[in-house]
Structures are given as structure tokens and as C-alpha cells.
């Protein structure tokens, strides 16, 4: 069935809300309003106020309460309206959700999911446009899911809700309206398995979220010049499908990583480090990271366009390897 990315996420929520009465959704304006980007539209009418809970503007509470309620047997899905706001409840992720199981010797678990949204390109400026998915990957105990297509989004969300670990699920503003054929009903996409979004033999591009689209467009361009690009989407950053990346680089001998985040310490750093450690022999050329510069995100459209990694920059980076 044809569905947008937003609809696919909503459909995934619906599947789980129907299946498991312990699943509920809580966050700011997720109820009658349907979410800041419309992702949860209609769920309140369908499932009512017990299951779809509008909270005050209180992110420490939103995330912290999910740690408590999930430790007590519920399966909360909470929303932090923008990725940028993960910073205000960072402790609840990094020191609470992530560590409860370990600190308590495995005798507690925190099966919660937090939805949030990334991405520049809509003029939302420095505090509403970031792609900060790399930050929490440094904290063991958390799972990071970051789908690039509607079908992946739905299947990964269902898998995330059923997972017994805390999961952060990153949507992307620029993907919400993208549509494709999405399986109906109940299915999961496994957490920790990369997907080759395009096969190729000359160079591997690893990209996630919106950057998969840009990389696919770049691959199309590059094909015209006879460069065969493999586009690998890890889909989850923790756990990371290292084997798939090494395998692809083994095939192509070249690696370009494309991330929307600032260059320094974006998740591309980790991928590059892994390959430099475990796959150095596979490389025929330096690794390249195509990334946003190390600057905050500017408001003015002309500056913001310069900020976002473009198809042209990806093409140029790949070409520089040949």
C-alpha cells in the first residue's frame, strides 16, 4: 500500500497500540492536534486519552516518566518534538534509560521508545534543525534507529516497540512526505541490519536518513560518468551492521560517508574509525566524510542551502577518489 513516511510511522504505532495494551504514546501535542508534523494525527480519536497522552511542556518528565513506567511493565512510546530538544532531557537518556538495566544487575529493563525528528532545510534555524543522532550513540545501553524510507520506518518502529531496550527513533522532516509501497499490517525490520539501497562496485557510500536520498541521487549522476556506486544504509547506528559495511568496502575498495550532522564527531567518524581499524587493507583510497560544516545551522535560506550536504558535494567527493 502506498504510504508516506509519516503515514508509515503512524501505521506502525497503530499496529502496536492495537496489539499490546501496555503500549501508549505520550508527548507534547501528540493527541487531538496530531503532533507538530501531523505524524500522530487521528490516533487520539482511535485510541482515546488513556493511550494517547498529551503532556505539558516538560521533557524531563516525558522521558523520565517513561523510564519509570517501562521499568514497571508498560511499553511507552514518547515523543520529544525536535531532536534539538533531546539536549534538555539528555540525562534521562544517558544516565537513566541507558544504565538502569546494568546498574541494577540485569534485574530491571526499560522497554521504551522515544520518537524525535531531525533535519535542516525548512528555515527552522539553529535550535530546530539539528541532526544530533550521533550524540547518544556514545552511551551504551541505548539503541539508535534512523530509517530513510517509509517501509523501513514502519518495520523498524514495530521492532523498536517490541525491543526490550530503550530505543531512540529519529524521523526526518524532509522524509515525512516521501511515499512508497509499504506492507500492510504487522511486520518488523530487524534492528542492526543494514540495507543496500543501491548496488554498485566502484565505491561505497554509507548514508542514513535524508542523506540516503541525496546519495542515491548522487549515485544516479555518477552512473552517467561510469562510476558504479553502492549506497549502504545502516538503518540503525547502534547496533551497527559493521560486517555489511566492511563487506561492501571489501567489494568497492572506496568509502564515502555522507552525514547531515556537523563533521566533527558525527557518526561518520565512528564508521571511518571502524574501517581504519578493521578494514584498512580493503581501502584503495582515503575515506571521505561529506558532512555539514562545524557551524550552527543558519536561518537564512541561502546560508542553510550552503550548510546542507548537497548532491553536488557528494558527487564531487566521490569523483575525487578516481
Amino acid at each position, binding site marked *: 500500500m502506498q504510504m508516506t513516511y509519516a503515514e508509515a510511522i503512524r501505521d506502525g504505532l497503530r499496529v502496536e497500540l492495537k496489539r499490546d495494551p501496555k503500549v501508549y504514546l505520550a508527548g507534547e*501535542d501528540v493527541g*487531538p492536534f496530531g503532533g507538530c508534523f501531523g505524524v500522530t494525527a487521528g490516533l487520539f480519536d482511535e485510541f482515546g486519552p488513556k493511550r494517547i497522552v*498529551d503532556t*505539558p*511542556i516538560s521533557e*524531563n518528565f516525558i522521558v523520565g516518566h517513561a523510564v519509570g513506567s517501562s521499568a514497571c511493565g508498560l511499553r511507552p512510546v514518547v515523543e520529544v518534538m525536535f531532536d534539538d530538544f533531546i539536549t*534538555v532531557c539528555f540525562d534521562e537518556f544517558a544516565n537513566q534509560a541507558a544504565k538502569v538495566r546494568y546498574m541494577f544487575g540485569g534485574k530491571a529493563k526499560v522497554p521504551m521508545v522515544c520518537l524525535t525528528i531531525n533535519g535542516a532545510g525548512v528555515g527552522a*534555524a539553529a535550535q530546530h534543525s539539528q541532526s544530533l543522532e550521533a550524540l547518544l550513540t556514545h552511551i551504551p545501553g541505548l539503541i539508535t534507529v534512523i530509517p530513510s524510507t517509509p517501509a523501513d520506518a514502519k518495520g523498524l518502529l514495530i521492532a523498536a516497540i517490541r525491543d526490550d531496550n530503550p530505543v531512540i527513533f529519529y524521523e526526518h522532516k524532509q522524509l515525512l512526505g516521501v511515499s512508497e509501497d509499504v506492507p500492510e499490517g504487522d511486520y518488523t525490520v530487524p534492528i542492526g541490519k543494514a540495507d543496500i539501497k543501491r548496488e554498485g562496485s566502484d565505491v561505497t557510500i554509507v548514508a542514513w536518513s535524508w542523506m540516503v536520498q541525496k546519495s542515491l541521487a548522487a549515485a544516479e549522476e555518477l552512473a552517467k560518468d561510469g562510476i558504479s556506486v553502492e549506497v549502504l544504509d545502516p538503518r540503525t547506528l547502534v547496533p551497527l551492521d559493521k560486517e555489511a559495511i566492511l563487506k561492501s568496502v571489501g567489494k568497492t575498495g572506496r568509502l564515502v560517508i555522507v552525514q547531515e550532522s556537523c563533521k566533527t564527531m558525527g557518526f561518520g567518524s565512528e564508521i571511518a574509525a571502524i574501517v581504519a581499524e578493521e578494514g584498512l587493507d580493503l581501502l584503495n583510497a582515503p575515506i571521505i566524510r561529506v558532512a555539514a560544516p562545524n557551524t550552527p545551522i543558519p536561518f*537564512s535560506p*541561502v546560508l542553510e542551502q550552503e550548510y546542507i550536504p548537497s548532491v553536488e558535494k557528494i558527487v564531487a567527493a566521490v569523483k575525487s577518489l578516481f
Partner: protein
Amino acid sequence: MEFSKEQLFDFYQTMATCRAFESRVSELFAAGKIPGFVHLSLGQEAIAAGVFACVEKDDKCGLHHRSHGEMIAKGGDINKMMAELFGKATGTCKGKGGSMHLADMDMGLLGANGILGAGFAIAAGAAFACRYNETNDITLCLFGDGQSNRGPLHESFNVAALWKLPIVWICENNGFGLSNPVKGHLATDNVSDRAAAYGMPGVTVDGNDVLAVYETTQEAVKRARRGDGPSLLEFKTWRWHGHFEGDPGLYKDPKDQEEWLKKDPIPRLGNMLIKKKYATQEDLDQMKAIGEAKIDAAVKFAEESPWPDASELYTDVYDRQL
């Protein structure tokens, strides 16, 4: 309290200019001339006009995300503000900030803030500096009802009261935090009910009555300047538009909306001016025209201003190129 004709005209002029500014911004946004998120405070102009008549240029003020009016009332440069909303190089922030990050340190305007609640501590820090420097300056901190539920409020209210910092906390209670009505997010009837928790005075006042706003603020400002510490003022008003431009505000009860439209603070003051024979309808029309003319000029300025050079993306991250 007795008001001079001049004072009353000033109130009227400020409100008329704010109204003209935001009405135009609404049109420009709809026409696609202004990108990003734009939050308007149409209907709330009495607060800006009343509050800022109580402070001097060197007094500081922390703003939130719905702060065009305040900025104008504090004496911000309207041309530069409009240029900022357009994302032009001549803007208040060189086009890098946009509506959510308007700032003007020369006017003591510490900046709008896209992270709800982050402004409490920043404003407290400004008040700390006012005292540390042994000036007589004070700081205002404006915020909405919704963000009054964020944790940093508590930390900052407590410390400000404990240290008797020269600050006035001003809540613009406009009925909603995005789609969530006050009774859906606040445990008490009034935000000002929280003042007692910090041993400071708290008061709730009609926010559409510019004179009441002025009187209340005046008293709190004096108290702060005297060194007697903070106060919490709550001005009840109503947001005419949706949360951001583009939000139809379907969650508002049309009856409430209608009621509040009738309470428009501008004709309210205008009628009084006429009744008291301080002004004729022509005087009022003229003030409106002055406001409009300023906005015409500002739009012209913004439209004719250049875009920032792409190289501006990389500047102002640090004081130097690292």
C-alpha cells in the same frame, strides 16, 4: 494611577506598530516571503507596550519565541528586524537567527530563544551581572504559560529569590501551549500561584489592559531596583492566530476566540482615549498610519537588502577561525 496624554499615546503607538508589524509578517509568510517558523502575538500587544514602558535602555530582557512585539516595544530597529525575518544580511543577526533568535544586545535584548525554558537561567544570569556590576539595572524575563512547566523555571526562580536578584518574571498567559489549553498543562489556575513557592509576590492581571500591565510591571520593576528581589507577574491574554503561522488553531473554541477578539487591547485603549477626549479618531488613525508607514519602510528595506554571502556560513562560530 494617572497617565499623561503623552504616555497613553505612546502605549497606543507601540501597540499599533506591533500590530502593523505582525499583520504584515503574517501576509508575507503566507506569500512565501518569510521562511521558517513564525510565531505571532497578535492580540497580545498590550503586554509588550505596557511592560517595556517601565524599563530603560540599559535594562536587560530575556525573550522567548514569540517576541516581535517585545522587541519593538523595547526599541529594536524595525528595519533590521524585518530584514532578519527575510534572512537578509542587514538583519539584526545578519540573517543567521531569524524570528526565533532575534536579539539586540545593544538594547539589552538578550535574545529570543527557541528552546522553551532555557531563557530563565540566562535572564537570571543577566540579573546577576546587573547586581555584580553594581549598576541599578534590572532584568525582565518574558515567557509563555506552556513553558512555565519546564524545570529551569524552578531552578531560576529559587535562586533569584534566594539571592534577591533584580529580575521580574513575566508570564504571557495566552491560553495555550501550542494546542494544549492551560487547564491541560497547569496544575493550578494561575501561573502566578507558583510565586509563593519562592516567597516572592505573584499576581495575575488582565493582559489586554495596557494600563494595568504598566502599573503592575512598574511596581515589580521598582521592587527589583530597590534590591527587594524578584516578582512573578502573569498577564492573561489570548493568541489570535495559530501557534505558528500555518496552524489554523482548530483546537480553539470559536466562542472563546470571538470573545477575546472583542477584547482587542488597541480599540480598548483607543475608546478610552476618545472618551477622555485625549484623542480624536483621526489621532488614532494617524498613529495607525505611522505604524503602517514604518512597516512599509521596513519591508522595502528588507526586500532591497542583499542576501548574506555564502561565506557568512562559516563566521561567528568562534571569535576567531579555529
